[in-house]
């Protein structure tokens, strides 16, 4: 945990991977993202927390343009997010995404889920793609389920497959949109462990979550959002033990005493 924090401090400022500048978005009358400025360095693990409706999921989805934004810029590895078409597809391939509801392709086996992107986007050959898929499934601990369909797996297993599917594209950054919120309590840890391992391996991660334990142990930085704004950013220890804003104090007081 301390080690990770040290790594973060050592990251040079020039190596910004994801940069959001002055990003705004409305859902009707609701100003869901308000002047968001956020920079994520290569290798950094940023955890975004906040009450529901604070815009954290929207923020996460905006980074690979599953949500459009109205103003401001988002750039990934120095390149601004393209509007549509081929360029956007290419960029999305470099940004791994893990969803709250797993979203595994229901008509394909676990193995096919992990090879599909490699075959169709990266144009890998079938044998290499399957080898890589099996290695990744092994890494997330679901090798035995390779030939089953998603509906035959537990939620925790499905989410780990979803992580493997995203990793198969060799993403530059991984986005996690509440990856454990749809899981039964006893399955949350198996997913968090995989994520923690990823963080240790140096993956750049943006994680929207309610898992404060994960934020404490794996994050380099905690971003606290409320009402569409980034209210506070701090290293986890500082944020949890000594939050500066009243909004964060209030939020933490409601969740931490359990």
């Amino acid at each position, binding site marked *: 945990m301390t080690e990770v924090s040290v790594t973060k401090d050592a990251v040079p400022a020039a190596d910004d991977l994801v940069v959001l500048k002055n990003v705004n978005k409305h859902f009707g009358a609701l100003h869901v993202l308000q002047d968001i400025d956020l920079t994520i360095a290569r290798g950094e693990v940023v955890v975004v927390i906040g009450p529901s409706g604070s815009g954290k999921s929207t923020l996460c989805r905006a980074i690979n343009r599953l949500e459009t934004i109205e103003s401001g810029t988002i750039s990934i590895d120095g390149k601004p997010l393209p509007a549509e078409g081929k360029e956007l597809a290419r960029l999305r391939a470099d940004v791994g995404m893990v969803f709250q509801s797993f979203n595994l*392709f229901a008509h394909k086996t676990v193995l096919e889920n992990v090879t599909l*992107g490699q075959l169709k986007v990266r144009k890998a050959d079938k044998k290499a793609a399957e080898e890589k898929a099996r290695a990744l499934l092994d890494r997330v601990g679901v090798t035995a389920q390779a030939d089953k369909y998603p509906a035959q797996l537990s939620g925790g297993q499905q989410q780990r497959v979803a992580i493997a599917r995203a990793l198969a594209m060799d993403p530059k950054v991984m986005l996690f949109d509440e990856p454990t919120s749809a899981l039964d309590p006893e399955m949350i840890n198996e997913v968090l462990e995989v994520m923690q391992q990823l963080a240790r391996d140096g993956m750049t991660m943006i994680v929207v979550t309610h898992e404060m334990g994960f934020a404490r142990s794996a994050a380099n930085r905690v971003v606290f959002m409320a009402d569409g704004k980034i209210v506070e950013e701090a290293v986890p220890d500082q944020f949890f033990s000594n939050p500066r804003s009243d909004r964060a104090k209030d939020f933490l007081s409601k969740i931490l005493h359990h």
Partner: protein
Amino acid sequence: MFDFLEGYDVLGAFWTTVQLTILSAVGSLIWGTLLAAMRVSPVPLMRGFGTAYVHIVRNIPLTVIIVFTSLGLADIFGVTMGSRDFDVQGFRLAVLGFVAYTAAFVCEAIRSGINTVPLGQAEAARAIGLNFSQTLRLVVLPQAFRSVIGPLANVLIALTKNTTVAAAIGVAEAALVMKEMIENEAQVLLIAAVFAFGFVVLTLPTGLIFGWLSKRLAVKR
């Protein structure tokens, strides 16, 4: 009792019905799928075309469409469908008309199937870098098809029976031969029963097979 059947090629007529049905089914499945793809595409022009096509074509009586292929396309615009032979031409024009008409219903069935595929499936496909057509072909449509096998069976059964309209432009399928027989023979009720039975033999298995397929291929979520 059935000697009135002599001198008529009833089996041949039903064979023409089967051929009309199969060719039109394949054609309308392809064209209907393309129309459905247009209707969900991000390009406004394609969406507009798909929507207009469906709304116009499905509201025109089939007889008008079939008669138009013969009197309009063939006689006025000189569309020969690659043959000077009147019978072959009529058959091909009828298939064209059935494809044009049935595709509108296939499109709507498939589009309702697309709506049963959770949005997250397409989002996940886009998130790994698949483009629109790959997302549709590899992820959304395979699941959509499986959920609309039942409705597509309805369309296919309707199509089988609709092929009788081809009699209007002289295609020698079942209904035309039936009409001839009714004009020339006395056993009107029996003739009708024979042809009704023939169609049930064609369509009943369609429904049963598709029902079985629909259960077997259902996507488990």
